[in-house]
């Protein structure tokens, strides 16, 4: 009986459609690190900046994420844009976040000096 696997396949389809509804497949995706360590380094106000300043934007998906393990570079923010390589900003502050929105998200200009290598 292949029941559980097929049940899960159904669930995966449902999950996908829910994600879709929430904008998961937008052209721009922003991931802000929100683990304890990231929060300690100041990621909550950074998240707030992205959420507040982009709340009227369509086709942008903002999500939290766990810690990838790069403690001394936190808070980190990744920007995925369709057909482009992801960009990781490190040691992001609210001020930097605003700049990132202005230059990178809205004008497509990566701020290379803030990008982790």
């Amino acid at each position, binding site marked *: 009986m292949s029941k559980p696997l097929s049940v899960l396949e159904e669930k995966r389809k449902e999950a996908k459609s829910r994600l879709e509804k929430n904008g998961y497949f937008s052209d721009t995706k922003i991931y802000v690190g929100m683990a304890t360590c990231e929060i*300690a380094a100041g990621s909550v106000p950074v998240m707030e900046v992205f959420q507040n300043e982009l709340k009227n934007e369509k086709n942008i998906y903002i999500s939290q994420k766990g810690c990838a393990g790069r*403690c001394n570079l936190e808070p980190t923010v990744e920007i995925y844009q369709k057909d482009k390589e992801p960009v990781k900003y490190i040691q992001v502050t609210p001020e930097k976040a605003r700049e990132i929105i202005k230059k990178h998200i809205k004008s497509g200009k990566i701020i290379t000096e803030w990008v982790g290598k």
Partner: protein
Amino acid sequence: MTSHIHNQEEINKQIKDFIAEILKQDRPDSHLITVLHKAQELNGYLSREVMDLVSQEMNIPTSTIWGVATFYHYFKLNPIGKYNISVCMGTACYVKGASEILETLKEELGIGVGETTEDMLFSMHEARCIGACGLAPVAMINDKIYGELTPKKITDIINKLRKEEETK
């Protein structure tokens, strides 16, 4: 004062309700630590009265409860200050100078580890690693983590909190 008494009654009632729920489950005794967490959350610390209440409600001897409460660092047996400072003494923090931070705080606040200032403003504890090693040395004041501390930085933070209190 009446408001305080009323408040205590309310706290006791919440603890009782919480225990009543626990007692419906399997092996209720095993939830003692859960209940003590809840009681501390509601009451601020584990007072004798609160532990007595837990004992009567859960049918666990007070000596057992006292044994458990004194075994675990997390349980506070005395009222704690408005600002509860936990200095992380994890290895990463230690290697990067956590003991200097602790010494500075002792001097600045005039209290030792586990103590509370007379004005009930600050309590100080040593914490095990709070998992912010990248920012070592760190301290947690209530829920907020302060990283990359230096003796000067921590003194400034304390003074800032003091000022805030004065202006209130």
